[in-house]
């Protein structure tokens, strides 16, 4: 649109459902120092009323239309979305446009949502064993700069210090239409949809798109190891963090690393399941994944591969790490077995199809790929891109990880 908002349409008239997603190009990484957790707190504030809506009305309009809504904050973006019966399509556009125009942020709503976010952190982190492990404890060991290393949920002091003025400034910088992507999927006529989008969004004032800083950091030259004590956890755990290739600049090496993670830990036939769980009985559970939250394609550089293991014996940590290393070395030296890569690729293709069967996921995925990689349709070409990765690529990916420094965080159980 004229104000810089990018729009993606994905019509599909087979089920009477629409998905609407708005992604803003701001996440944990863009929070100012002293305001940890602000991007997530701000996400909550975007639901507290807007230009033409009182507090609580946004939720009521979505649900009274038979729809559901949510939002979530990630390293590099924040999303807002709803899925509804298709007769509520224009209503959903109105709701998203209204808060893109001006959210209604008051002292009272801010205080209320600070309290709610603190309870969210208590229920997900402080009051449960393994809360925030490893997503909150690994970054400060794996990274050195504030944007990459800090706690994205935020410290309570920083949250309590947040002001309405902070929120206004954050909105002004990062919630410009030119810094957002709107994606709609499902049961609509594309021409009519484009007219409606024009009606609701084109009048939102054009503002400068903020310059995204380079968050890059040099790789680790040696291993770094720390431990955390979890007073509620009954059994130990360890997380290994690796720096990985730039997904945008070097997709081949990145996707090879993705396939490596899958062949290491996806399913009973994977190498770490067979080696560490089934044969050696060292660990209860093991997982290897790319991206902070397990979505391999939701972050720009620098991102990470994480391997976590839970095991019953506190003295076994070094054995667990050595066993992971041994599997990486095996792939680095010998590459995948015949057929191994093909079945992992087939499985991934099935996973992508299943995900895209949901209209809401389509709007979210198209918006995300447009925002991060400038190409909404990339999600559709992923299965094909994966077929171009060779055994040698995966072997090189394993060599790169095996030869690099990494972050190790050991969780020491504090409960009986």
């Amino acid at each position, binding site marked *: 649109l*004229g104000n810089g908002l990018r*729009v*993606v*349409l*994905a*019509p599909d008239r087979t*089920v*009477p*459902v629409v998905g609407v997603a708005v992604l803003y190009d701001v996440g944990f990484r863009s929070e100012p120092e002293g305001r940890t957790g602000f991007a997530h707190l701000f996400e909550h504030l975007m639901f507290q009323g807007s*230009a*033409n*809506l009182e507090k*609580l009305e946004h*939720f009521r309009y979505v*649900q009274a*239309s*038979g729809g*559901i*809504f949510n939002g979530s904050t990630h390293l590099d973006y924040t999303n807002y979305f709803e899925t509804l*019966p298709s*007769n*509520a399509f224009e*209503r959903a*556009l*109105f709701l998203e446009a209204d808060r893109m125009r001006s959210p209604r942020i008051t002292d009272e709503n801010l205080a*209320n949502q*600070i309290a709610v976010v603190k*309870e969210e952190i*208590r*229920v997900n982190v402080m*009051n*449960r*064993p393994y809360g925030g492990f490893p997503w909150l404890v690994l970054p400060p060991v794996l990274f050195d700069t504030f944007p990459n290393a800090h706690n994205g949920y935020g410290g309570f002091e920083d949250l309590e210090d947040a002001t309405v003025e902070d929120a206004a400034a954050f909105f002004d910088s990062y919630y410009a239409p030119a810094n957002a992507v709107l994606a709609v*999927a499902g049961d609509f006529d594309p021409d009519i949809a484009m007219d409606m*989008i*024009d*009606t609701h969004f*084109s*009048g*939102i004032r054009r503002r400068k798109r903020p310059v995204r800083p380079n968050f890059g950091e040099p790789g680790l030259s040696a291993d770094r190891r720390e431990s955390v004590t979890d*007073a509620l956890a*009954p059994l130990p755990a360890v997380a290994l963090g690796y720096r990985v290739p730039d997904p945008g600049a070097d997709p081949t090496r990145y996707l090879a690393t993705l396939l490596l993670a899958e062949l290491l830990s*996806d399913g*009973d*036939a994977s190498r770490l399941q067979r080696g560490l*769980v*089934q044969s050696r*009985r060292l660990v*209860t*559970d093991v997982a290897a994944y790319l991206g902070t939250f397990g979505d391999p394609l939701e972050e720009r550089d620098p991102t990470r591969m994480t391997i976590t293991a839970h095991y019953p014996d506190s003295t076994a940590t070094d054995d667990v790490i050595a066993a992971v290393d041994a599997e990486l070395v095996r792939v680095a030296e010998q590459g995948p077995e015949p057929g191994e890569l093909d*079945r992992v690729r*087939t499985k991934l293709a*099935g996973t992508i*199809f*299943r995900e895209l*069967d*949901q209209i809401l996921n389509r709007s979210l995925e198209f918006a995300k790929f*447009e925002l991060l990689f400038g190409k909404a*349709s990339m999600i559709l070409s992923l299965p094909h891109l994966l077929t171009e990765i060779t055994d040698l690529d995966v072997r090189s990916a394993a060599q790169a990880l095996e030869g690099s420094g990494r972050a190790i965080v050991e969780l020491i159980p504090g*409960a009986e």
Partner: protein
Amino acid sequence: MTASTGTRRPAPRANGRHAAPTAVPPLTKPARPRKIASAERLLPNGLRVAVVRRPSVPMVEFRLRVPFLSSKSHHLARSSLLSETMLTGTSRHDRTSLAIALQELGGDLSVGVDADRLLLSGSALSHKLPDLLALVSDVLIGATYPKQEFVVERQRLIDRVTVARSQPAVIANEALGKRLAPGHPYAVSVPSVEEVADVNAGAVRTMHHDLVRPNGAILVLVGDISANRALDSVERALEHWTGEQGTRKVPPLPSPITGPLQLVDRPGAVQTSLRFGGSSVNRADERYPAYQLANLAFGGLFSSRWVENIREDKGYTYSPRSVLDHSTLGSVFLASADVATEVTAPAILETLYELGRMALLPIKQSELELVRQYAIGTSALSIATQAGLASNMIALLGAGLDLEWLTSHSERLARVTVDEIAAAAGEFLSPRNLVCVAVGDSAVVRADLDRLLDVEVVEG
């Protein structure tokens, strides 16, 4: 599906810019719900099969439900281990080759169990359906429960049970379950470490032999498949799976133990996990639509009284929610919220207030319309994917209902009145009829709670 980046620039309006819309657009005419055609067949071995063609993506979803309800004391530990080890070996495959075969189908297969049923869930690229069925048949007829794999999985389950029992949510749900269904198999869903350690592979093989039988089982397939061909494939693949389960006696659901709030002590806890529960009615009951909407209005969606009060007004909690939960022998109302320790008593006060208000006073017509549309709309959303439709179908068929029940349910919801909701809420949301459990730091929260209601403290 396609993605097209919108590049067309519409012609500028007369004044050159757009006035900002200020009114919420009305809903347009709803799309007429499309009838879902399902093909069914009862196989000679007693297996009931239902297939829906839904070619949205080139996949097929698989759900197989086997009734598993039993009141034997060792049933929970044995059935838990059976579900963990069912895919670790067959007469044709070892664990690794079975997992490889599944990956090659672009799919997955998993086994889950609860008090009512064993459920095999899977998916595959749709043209691989015959291969998926062949693997399933191999598991159903020829699962071997190899001792070596069994020992690994038993230790893993012990570790997981140890971790589960450190979770406040698990502690709270168990305390609630023991009072909602005292002495009944529904009371407990996580076995003890000792119970798990006592089970051997032979006992699980016997359980498979006795209970994993086609008579009374239900299979659902949804996907990019031809219904008749899929039915033929199932019949061919599973014809050698035979036999009937022995009859098992399970006592009816007992009455909940209401009475004092049960406070499970968890010293140092920064939150208190609150749980409320009571009897409800099942989906076939003519009062069910009113129960469903009364639950939604109380705490079943974000725009409900309880959530707007204790979250959006008071900020006591992040995720309060209430549900109606259906099992073979009965249905229950469950409400849960994790609240900051220091506001435990005020949060219970507000909860009792909102429950009492539901039980005594009629809801507004506008509230009824909101929850009615929410119930109708989200039901359509829940069956808009292959996986969602398959999961809904297996749950409905397992409860003795069918897709026709689901499609006609909108009409039943459309007829519910404010008075019917008041009658329902007067029963199941009355605080006197509810079990209350709190898991939290007794030393901090006890004194305030004593001022509000009767409390019984239990060691954590």
